[in-house]
C-alpha cells in the first residue's frame, strides 16, 4: 500500500501496517516531518479531551505510545511527565472538576490538587490560584524524532521529495495507486495521511474532505534548569480546544523540555495559510505564561515558530475507508492532537486494512460524514 504524507500520522500508519504484514511505501513531497509535525509541539494529552470518541482514541493512543517507548523512548524523547491543569478562579475550578469527573468515568486518571498542594507539584506556580487537577497519563515526545524513528523501525520504503499529483483508479473506480512527479506507484490501497493538505489528496481521488488550516504560534525560551515539571496549563484551554470560533484564542500551555528550553503554546486562529508574524498573538501567549509562572517574566524567548493544524468542521479526524472510493483510506484532520492520536490512528487503520475488526468504533471518524451536509448545501 501507499501512504501519502510522512508526518507523524503517516509514520504511525506505516509502522502498524508494516507490522501487520503489509508492504508499505511512504511518500512525501518534502522530508520526513516537513509539514505540521515539524511545526508543532509533542504533547500527548488525555487531559484536554471531553468524554467521547476523541478521548477513547487518545486513551488507546497513549497506551500504544507507552508500548513504543519501551524500545524507542530515549530516541523519541518520550517523557511520561503528567499534566497539571490549573484553575485561577473558583468558577473555573468548578468547571474543571466537573470535566475531570466525566473523564474519570471514561477511564482517565485525574487527581484533584488543592490550592495548598499546588506548589508541591509545581514549585514556581503563581500564588493565589484556586486549584488544579493532575493527569498522570499525559506525556510528551519530540514530534520530528518520533516520526523519523517510527518510519525507520517500520521498515517501510520511504520516498521523500516525491509529490503525489493524482490518484490512479481502475475502470471499476477502485484505487490502483498514485501518480507522482517521478512516476506511478501502484498499490491496491492508498492512505491519505496528508494532514492539512488532506483535502487536496482526497480531491485527487474525487472525494470531498473539508480539511482546513488553524494557525498556531509557539514560543521557545532560552535553556533553563528544570523548573516546570508537568505540562501546565490554564483550565480555559479546554474551552479553547473545543471552540468553534474563528477568532484568536490563546491558552498558555507551559512545559519544560529535555534540552532545557521551555515551550509556550499554542495559539489557535483561523487565518488560512498566512505565514506572517503576528506580535499580538505572541504577546497573548507570553501574558498567559507569565500569569501562570511569574519567574518567566525575566526569561527570554529565543524564537517563535508557527504551524497549521489540520481540522475538520466537527474537530474530529477522518479515519478509515472512504466508502465513495474503494481502496482509498483516510488518516488526517487531527487538528491540535495529531501527535498524540497518531499511534491509535495507525493501529485502527492497520486493523481495517487487514480486514480485522477495529478495536474502536470508527463511525464518528467516517471520512464521508460531511457529504450529506455538502449535498444539502448544493
Amino acid at each position, binding site marked *: 500500500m501507499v501512504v501519502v504524507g510522512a508526518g507523524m500520522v503517516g509514520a504511525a500508519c506505516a509502522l502498524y501496517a508494516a507490522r501487520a504484514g503489509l508492504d508499505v511505501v511512504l511518500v512525501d513531497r*518534502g522530508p520526513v*516531518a516537513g509539514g505540521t509535525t515539524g511545526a508543532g509541539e509533542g504533547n500527548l494529552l488525555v487531559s484536554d479531551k471531553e468524554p467521547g470518541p476523541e478521548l477513547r482514541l487518545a486513551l488507546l493512543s497513549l497506551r500504544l505510545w507507552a508500548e513504543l517507548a519501551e524500545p524507542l523512548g530515549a530516541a523519541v524523547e518520550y517523557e511520561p511527565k503528567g499534566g497539571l491543569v490549573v484553575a485561577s478562579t473558583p468558577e473555573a475550578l468548578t468547571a474543571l472538576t466537573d470535566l475531570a469527573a466525566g473523564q474519570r468515568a471514561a477511564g482517565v486518571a485525574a487527581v484533584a490538587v488543592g490550592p495548598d498542594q499546588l506548589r508541591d507539584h509545581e514549585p514556581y506556580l503563581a500564588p493565589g490560584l484556586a486549584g488544579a487537577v493532575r493527569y498522570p497519563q499525559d506525556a510528551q515526545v519530540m514530534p*520530528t524524532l518520533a516520526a523519523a524513528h517510527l518510519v525507520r523501525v517500520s521498515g517501510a520504503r520511504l520516498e521523500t521529495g516525491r509529490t503525489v499529483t493524482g490518484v490512479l483508479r481502475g475502470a471499476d473506480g477502485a484505487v490502483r495507486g498514485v501518480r507522482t512527479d517521478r512516476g506511478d506507484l501502484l498499490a491496491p490501497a492508498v492512505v491519505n495521511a496528508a494532514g492539512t493538505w488532506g483535502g487536496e489528496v482526497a480531491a485527487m481521488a474525487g472525494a470531498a474532505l473539508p480539511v482546513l488550516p488553524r494557525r498556531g504560534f509557539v514560543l*521557545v525560551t532560552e535553556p533553563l534548569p528544570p523548573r516546570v515539571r508537568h505540562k501546565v496549563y490554564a483550565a480555559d484551554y479546554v474551552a479553547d480546544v473545543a471552540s468553534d470560533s474563528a477568532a484568536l484564542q490563546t491558552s498558555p500551555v507551559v512545559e519544560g523540555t529535555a*534540552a532545557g528550553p521551555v515551550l509556550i503554546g499554542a495559539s489557535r486562529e483561523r487565518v488560512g495559510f498566512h505565514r506572517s508574524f503576528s506580535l499580538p498573538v505572541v504577546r497573548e501567549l507570553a501574558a498567559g505564561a507569565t500569569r501562570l509562572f511569574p519567574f518567566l517574566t*525575566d526569561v527570554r524567548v*529565543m524564537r517563535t*515558530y508557527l504551524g497549521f493544524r489540520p481540522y475538520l468542521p466537527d474537530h474530529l479526524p477522518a479515519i478509515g475507508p472512504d466508502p465513495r472510493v474503494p481502496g482509498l483510506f483516510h488518516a488526517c484532520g487531527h487538528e491540535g492532537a495529531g501527535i498524540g492520536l497518531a499511534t491509535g490512528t495507525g493501529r485502527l487503520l492497520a486493523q481495517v486494512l487487514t480486514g480485522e475488526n477495529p478495536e474502536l468504533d470508527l463511525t464518528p471518524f467516517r471520512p464521508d460524514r460531511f457529504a450529506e451536509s455538502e449535498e444539502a448545501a448544493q
Partner: protein
Amino acid sequence: MPERSPVLAVIGAGPAGLAATLAAAGRGVRVVLVDSAAEPGGQFYRQPARGLGARRPKALHHQWRTWRRLRTGLDARLAAGQVTYLSEHHVWCVERESPGFTVHALLGPEQRESVALRADGVLLATGGYERVLPFPGWTLPGVVTAGGAQALLKGGLVLPGRTVVVAGTGPLLLPVATGLAAAGAKVAALVESADPRAFAHRARSLVGAPAKLVEGAGHAARLGWHGVPLRVRHTVLEAHGTERLESVTISALDSEGRPVPGSERRVLCDTLAVSHGLLPHTDLADGLGCGLDGVTVRVDEEQRTDVPGVWAAGEATGIGGAALSLAEGHIAGRSAAARLRGTTPDPGAWASAARTRTRLRAFFAALDGAYAPAARWVERVTDGTVVCRCEEVTAGAVRAAVGSLGAGDLRTVKLLTRAGMGWCQGRMCEPGVAGVAGCAPAPARRLLARPVPLGVLAEPADPPPPQ
C-alpha cells in the same frame, strides 16, 4: 494645524544607514536612526568606545575622510533637530500597522526593557555577519572570527593574541591581517583557500573599480612590509591544543580543492582568526514579510522591498563592501524622502550613486565567485567535529540524521539534531551544518531578531503617536 513631517526609521548606523540618514534628513522627513552599538559607524567604521581615549583611531581606517564626512554630516543634522539618533537600541521586531510601522527595540547592553517607536517608513540597513565553516579543532578557545578579532581591535583597541594566523577566504582577510600586524601582533600566516588566478580571470569586470584595487594593493603591500607570509590556495586542516589553541596544521590545496599530500606544515599560534565570507542579516525583513532572493533582501532600483514603505540598503541586500553600502543607502534615503512625502523621486538626482552601485555590484559578483570556500571542505570535517557549538552537535550526528532518519533539508536536520537551536539560533552554524548535511543553505525564519524577555512581550507597550 501644520502638517507633521513623515518619520523614517533607519535601522543600522553603518555606512548604508548613515548615507540614507544624510540623504533623507533635510528633505522633508524626520529620521530616527536606530542602532544596537554604542557608537555609529557599523562594522566598517566601528569606533572605539569613548572612554578608551584612543589617540589615533584613524590609523586603523583607510577611507578615514569618508567617515569624517558622514560623522560631521550626522552631527549637523542632529544639531538641526532633523535626526534623532538612538544608540544601544536592539530592534527585535518591526510591526506593520495600518498605516505605518512600529519599531520595537530593547535597550542598552542588558536588553531587558523595550521601547516602541512609530514610523511612517522603515529603512533596513542592518548589514551582514560572518560566515565561519567548521573544521577539526575550530571550537578551541583562541579560535575567533576574523571580524571578531578586528572588532576587538577597532572597538576596544586590544589585540586578541600575540601570534595570529588569519585564515579562510574572502576580501575581509587582508584588512584583518594588516590591521592586526599594524597593531603589533605577529601574523604568522594569512591562509587564503581561494586561487588568485580565478580572480584574475574575472578582471574585466574589475576595470571600473580602481579604488577597490588600489585598496587591495595597499593591503598586500602592507602585508609584505609587516613580513606576513601570504599562503594562497592553502587551508587550515586542523587547529591543535589541549586547553586552548597552540598551533594549526596548514596544507596546500590542489586544483580540485584536495590537500596536497606532503605539503602539511605546523604553524605555532595562540590565535586563529577565521572567516569564510559574509551573510546578510534578513531577520527583520523576513518578519515584515519582505521577499528574499536566496539569502538577501530583494529590492528594486530605488532600494524598495516588496513591502510598501520598507526600503533596504547595504549588505542586508547583498555583500558588497562599504562603498556599495554608501551608494545604496544614499539612493534608498532619497527615494524614501520623496515617497514618504507622496512625491515621485527623480532617479537623475542619484545618477552617480546608481553608477557606483552598478559597478560595485558587478565587481563583488566577480569577487564572490573567486572567493568561494575551498571545495571539499566538508570532507575534512571529521564525524567527531562539533558543528553546532550552542547545542554541541557533531558532524557525525548531522550525517546520521541525513543517512538513517531521512532528513533532506536544513530544517529537518535541525529538528532531528538540535543543530542551530541554541543561543545563536543558527546564525553561526547554519552554513556549516547545511554543508555537512549536503543540503541547500536555506535561511531559517527567525521571526524575532533578538531574544526578548517574556515580561517585555507580556506587557504591550502602547506606542506614542509619531511626534
